[in-house]
Structure formats: C-alpha cells, structure tokens
C-alpha cells in the first residue's frame, strides 16, 4: 500500500487548459472520490494518475517515487473503465487471466500452443487466483461465458475482478456505475463500499454524481474547470464548503442563495431583518442555506413569505419551491410530509431559517466564516 500524490498537475490540449495546477494527496487505504460536473477534468486527472495520459507539467508520485515517466502497466495500478472494456472475444475467466498472464508469464510461455505445455504449473496457480477473486465477487458461475452474454451488473463485476486479480496498489474507477440503471446503481454503491472495507486497498473513484461521492467516500475532492476546489470528508464538504461553487454542487436539492448584507456591527441583515450571525467583514454578502434548514412556520412575521409554486413530493420528504414576495429570490424548503400536507399549491408559505446552519459567501463566492452571536449580547 502506498500514498498517491499528484503535484502541480497541469494539462493542456492545444489551447485549452484542462487542468490547472492540481495538487492532491491520496492516503493509503482511503476511498477518495473526484467529483465535479462534466468536463471539469476529473477523468483526465485519473488517467494521468494511471499513466494513460501525460501531464503537460507536474509529477505523479506513488509511494514517494516519481512515476511520471513510468508506463501504466508498471505502476501497479488497476483501472475499471466506464464501458468496462472487457475483451469481447475472451471468456470471463480469460479476461481475468489476461493481466496475470501478461505479468507473470514470459513471452515463450504465452505462445498459443507451446506455452500451455511449458507453463502448466504457473498457469494452474494463476487460475487459482482468478477463482479466488471470482468467488469473492460471486461470479464463479459466469467464468465460461463471454461478456456479450452478461448483464450490465455482471460485466461490471467482471471488470472489477480483472482489476482485483492484479492486487494493485490502488483501484482507479472512471464512473463505473453510470451505465447501470438507477436501482442497480444504488445497490452497487453499497457493494463497492463494502468491497473497499474488505480489501483495504486505496480506491480512487471518479463520478459526476455528488450523491455517490457523499455516500461512498472517506474523502471527497470537488473539481470544477480544472481546479481542485476542496478536498475533505463528505461531511466537511457538505457542511463546511470553502466556496459557493462547492456548496452549490454538493447537496440535492441545491442550496438556496439569498442576497443579504452585513451591517456596521458585522451582523447579517436579510429580508429587512437582522440575524444573530456575525462575520468579520462588511458590505453585501451571499447567504447560503440548505432546504432542510428552512422551515415552514406559522408566525405572523416570518423572515420570508411566498406562494408555493411547485411541490416535489418524494414520499419521505416534500420540497416546496417558493418564489418570495420580494420577487428577487426563489427558495426550496424541505418540509416533513405531515407539515406539508396542510399547504396547497398556491397557498402562502411562511418560512424561517436555522441561523446556525447559514453559510456566508462573499461577492466572489468565497466562504466567509461566521459566528453565532445573539445581538446585543455582551461578550462576557
């Protein structure tokens, strides 16, 4: 097991800069997800880590050793591709044997007719390894089939198996679940996470689905436009984002952003009211609050009001979309079904927020730290 490090990775395709000075360290044994919208460079970064692409500048280090110039096959990494990339003309068993044969048998032992005779013992040993892995993944009964005869989920497992037999330093996965249907995807998320726990090997996972990132990883790296915006635990990235971009991307439904200001004392003013939130800055400020931290209230002087324009009823939760009376904002409020049922489309919703959960961002979207302080309280 070794630490993987990407240092100052820059990648340019002709005139476009796909990666901008990315620095990332992946600790041994962790499950790190690279997440971001399409085109942000995450797949490119993964391929640079694998060696399938060369960085324009920067280095890749595995276990402290600079491997930027080393061939992919010699980096001892294994990759699971989005399209699985299984060899269509080989059986499942042969697919899984291929990396082992290429690594452990020399050229003569690999020749079609003569080879098997010369290397019977070695081959038996390799077949044992394949069998062990296929048992773990429960695909043993598929060993004699060809990829064309398998379902999507089965192929995915075979692709995993082919990566696993190599016992690599890390598994690299490029959106492996995106070709599966929704139900299977959720199921496979759990399986992959359990696999990670069982194997203990480093997983580097790429996806555009932030829910996958949050549910599976030990750490999440958010990327946009070739920049690494934030790296942290799912919780940190969710509750403590360093920028509005991260906050908007992570979390579904999207975070609400309201325009507010900071008064001279540093308190946040919003919708004409002052909140018990203080920041060390002044001027206009962007107030971010997630739907689950907004509530429907019955008070006569709510912070926000508006009529319910659209309702998302997910069964376990209801999200009301409410354009506010000030005609500048539209917020999404999460309401437990019991509360929400009292409110119909078109009715007026009165909304208040949970001050402690507010995230402040300056004009450029950078996070501004804030403290909860009741106004007028005298510092003891």
């Amino acid at each position, binding site marked *: 097991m070794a630490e993987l490090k990407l240092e100052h990775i820059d990648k340019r395709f002709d005139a476009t800069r796909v990666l901008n000075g990315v620095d990332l360290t992946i600790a041994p044994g962790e499950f790190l997800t690279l997440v971001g919208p399409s085109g942000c460079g995450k797949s490119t970064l993964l*391929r640079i880590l694998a060696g399938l692409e060369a960085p324009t500048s920067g280095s890749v280090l595995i276990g402290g050793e600079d491997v930027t110039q080393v061939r992919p096959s010699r980096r001892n990494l294994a990759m699971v591709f989005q399209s699985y990339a299984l060899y*269509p003309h080989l059986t499942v068993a042969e697919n899984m044997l291929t990396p082992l044969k*290429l690594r452990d048998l020399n050229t003569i032992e690999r020749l079609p007719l003569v080879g098997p005779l010369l290397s019977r013992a070695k081959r038996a040993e390799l077949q044992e390894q394949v069998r062990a892995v296929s048992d773990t993944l429960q695909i043993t009964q598929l060993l004699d089939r060809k990829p064309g005869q398998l379902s999507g989920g089965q192929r995915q497992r075979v692709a995993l198996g082919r990566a696993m037999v190599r016992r690599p330093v890390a598994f690299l996965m490029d959106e492996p679940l995106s070709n599966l249907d929704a139900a299977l995807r959720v199921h496979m998320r759990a399986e992959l996470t359990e696999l990670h726990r069982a194997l203990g090997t480093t997983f580097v996972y790429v996806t555009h689905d932030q829910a996958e990132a949050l549910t599976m990883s030990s750490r999440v790296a958010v990327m946009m436009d070739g920049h690494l915006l934030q790296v942290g635990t799912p919780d940190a990235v969710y509750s403590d984002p360093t920028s509005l971009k991260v906050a908007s991307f992570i979390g579904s439904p999207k975070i609400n952003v309201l325009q507010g200001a900071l008064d001279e004392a540093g308190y946040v003013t919003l919708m004409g009211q002052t909140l018990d939130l203080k920041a060390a800055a002044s001027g206009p400020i962007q107030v971010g609050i997630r739907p689950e931290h907004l509530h429907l209230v019955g008070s006569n002087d709510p912070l926000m009001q508006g009529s319910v324009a659209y309702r998302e009823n997910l069964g376990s939760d209801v999200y009301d979309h409410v354009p506010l009376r000030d005609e500048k904002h539209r917020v999404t409020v999460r309401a437990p079904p019991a509360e929400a049922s009292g409110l119909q489309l078109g009715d007026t919703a009165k909304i208040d927020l949970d001050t402690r959960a507010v995230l402040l961002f300056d004009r450029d979207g950078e996070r501004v730290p804030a403290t909860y302080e009741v106004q007028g309280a005298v510092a003891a």
Partner: protein
Amino acid sequence: MSAGSASLGVRTQAHWWFVAPALILMLVILIVPILVAFGLSLTDYALGNRTANFVGLENYEDIFTRSTYERMFKASFLYVVLTVPASVGLGLGAALLINSVSRFGDLYKTIYFLPVMAALLAMAIAWEFALNPSVGVVNIFLEMGCGSWLESWSWYANGCATSFPLWLGDRDYAIWTLSFIGIWQGFGFTMVLYLAGLTGIPRELYQAAEMDGAISGWERFRLVTWPMLGPTTVFVVTISMIRSFQVFDTVEALTRGGPSKSTYVMLYAIYEKAIQQNLMGIGAAITVVFLGFVLILTLIQRYLVERRVHYT
C-alpha cells in the same frame, strides 16, 4: 419498422409495377443464364448451330481429367493462393501503419488506393512495359544492383550474369508476376476496408490492454486489434477470393493463358473455349464449376460471420 402502406384503405397495385422490372431482369439476366449454363454444359453446342446434341456429363469428365483443365485449376488456385493472403496481409499492414502515423496518413491512403481506381488493363500494359526484359524499369533497377552485396543471393547473381527471368514469358514466373500485379491492384481495397474496421475498435479496449500490461505493439495487436478485426477479416478474405477468382484482364492482355497454360485461369478458359473456339458446351461446363466455387465461398463466409456475431 412496419411497412404500412395500404393502411389508408386505398389498395394500390403500384407495387407490382415497382417490382416487375427488377423481377423480370433478375430472372432473365441472373437466373435464367445459370439454367442455360447448366443445360448447355450437357451438350456440344456451338454458336451458329441449329441444334445441340446432348452429350451427358462428357464435358465435365473432360474438365476433371484432361491435363489442360488440370492446369486451369492449378493456375486458378495458385493465383488465388498467391494473391489473397498477400493482398489481405499488405492491406492490413498498410492500414495499421497509416493508422499509427501522425502525419501524411491521408496522402498514403490516397496513393495506395489509386491502383483500385485505374483501369486494370491500362495499368497491366504499363506493368508489362515496366517488366520488359531490355527497356523495362524493373530490370533497369535490378541491373543497378549488380556488382553490389545483393549478388550474394545466388538467384540475383545468376540474373546479373546471364539475364533476369522473363517475367511474363517464363512458365515458372508468369503466374507469380500476374499475381504480383493483382496484389498491386487489390491491396488498396483491402486496406480501405481494414481502415474502416479499425475505427470501429473502442479505444478503451486499448487502454485496458495497456493497464493489463500489453506493452508492445505486437501484444496489443494480438489481444485487441486482431480479434476485433475478426468480422472484417472474414469479409475481406471472401471478397478478395471472389475477386481473384475472376481475374481476366491481366491474363488476356499479357499472357493469354500461357506460357504453357501456366496462367490459364478459369475465366480466361471460358473466354478461349467459348468465344474464341466456339466450344460453348465446355465453356458452359467451366462456368458451372466456377459458379459452384463462388457459391461455396460466399456461403462459407456467411456461416463464419453468423457464428462470430456475439460480441458486446
């Protein structure tokens, strides 16, 4: 997709008008001649005769016993065996090379495809001139190599000493020369088909192979390229075989089936026996045998393609 025509309640007989010309032509031009060939092959018909006498399988007996026809089969098969693997192999090699160079790929593709476009007869005559023993460029080049290290090859030394073989006039060389011209003309075609096949190979497969440790070009070829080109190869080989079975232009223009019937290929035999010698019966019999070969080849190809169709 359904063909919903008369669904509007208006029944037309239009389709018969549409199909009739094609149907009639198919019958008259393609199917009837096969029957005519069968029929005539059992007679001793000659053009201009009022009648044709039934001779049973005599013509077929001749074909499968007389030495002329033995040489015919030999020439045809030898030509196919020489031309097809080389055309296919060179086409594949050219496609792989062109696919892998970063510049001038299109230029090479164009150049290699030119022979396919040019009238074979015209080019055959140009080749004949190039192969002329005294003033042809081929021998001029060969003679330039005389006195150099190439003479360590005894055949070459021999050629320098006496003379290089008569490419088209020597019984042992003629079929090889014709085959060479056939390869020259044909490999651009197979190359283009292979280039199309190569674009169909998913790139991620190569990346997976790289990750698995298939480092050298040869290993990538064995693991990914060749298997994925399977259907293309079956197809290319069949097309090449059928085309080379039908060789005629070079034979008629350059060797006339000789010397000593060493280039007496089937289509030329038909031409000579039937058109020149007015022996329609035997010509028809050769036609039938020829059709049989083509049919068998095509059916084998269909079968092989059917079998390999379960890829992802």
